[in-house]
């Protein structure tokens, strides 16, 4: 049998890799993918708890997280395309127009 803690630890590791991606990559698309991975890691924890407590709440929350992630990606990629049109770069370090 697999202890529940192993799944939660895997979720923590995937979340950390996603956070690391946000910190070290400068490409806006990769940063977006890392955010998706963090959402996914949280989903894994939700579904694990739904399994061990045999309750449907965790699964339904995971479903909502997937829906919110889809909405987030649609707006986020539109923003990236709009930024690319004006700056011809998706390097997040270039997006510093407000800097004094």
């Amino acid at each position, binding site marked *: *049998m*697999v*202890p*529940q*803690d*192993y*799944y*939660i*630890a*895997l979720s*923590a*590791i*995937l*979340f*950390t*890799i*996603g*956070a*690391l991606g946000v*910190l*070290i990559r*400068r*490409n806006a*698309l*990769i940063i*977006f*993918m*890392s955010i*998706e*991975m963090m959402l*996914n890691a949280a*989903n894994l924890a939700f*579904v*694990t708890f*739904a*399994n*061990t407590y045999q309750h*449907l709440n965790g*699964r*339904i929350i995971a*479903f*909502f997280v*997937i*829906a919110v*992630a*889809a*909405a987030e*990606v*649609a*707006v986020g*990629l*539109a*923003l990236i*395309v*709009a930024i*690319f049109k004006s700056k011809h*770069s*998706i*390097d997040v*370090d270039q997006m510093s127009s407000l800097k004094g």
Partner: protein
Amino acid sequence: MSPELILFLVLSLVAIAAAIGMLISPNPVYSALFLVINFSTVAVFYLILGAPFIAMAQITIYAGAIMVLFLFVIMLLGAEKLAPGKVLPYQKPLAIGLAIVLMVESVYAVLARNPSDAEIIVPTEAANSIDAMRDLGIMLFSDYLLPFEVTSILLLVAMIGAIVLTKRAKGEQE
């Protein structure tokens, strides 16, 4: 070692390796494909955890729709060869150090500090039946009706937002 544990270890190894591949590959197209592998392995985890509906939603929405959208944008922008910009020299080692601290801390907090003796319940045949799916649907449309409707409004707002953001202003030339 039980077969379940071996299955878990192999799959988690694949998931972590795909995640690291996503992180370090220089080309965003490869990153997106690595992320598809990661999402697919997590979908298999959902099946092991007895959540077939979430697993299929994961495959169709995440690995299918979202990643295809990503690949479209990567190819649309043609930005796969991004010139390395000026970065803070200490940022990368500092970020890796902090991430390792976070990982050790969170795994320690889960496994050593606050262990739970709960074990994964292997799904019975009933968990993968239509009846289980019906229970999920009934709960979604009774207890969670308001969040469900709010989600539909959120998706509508996101759709309109994406159209407005990418639309050209009147009279603007390419």
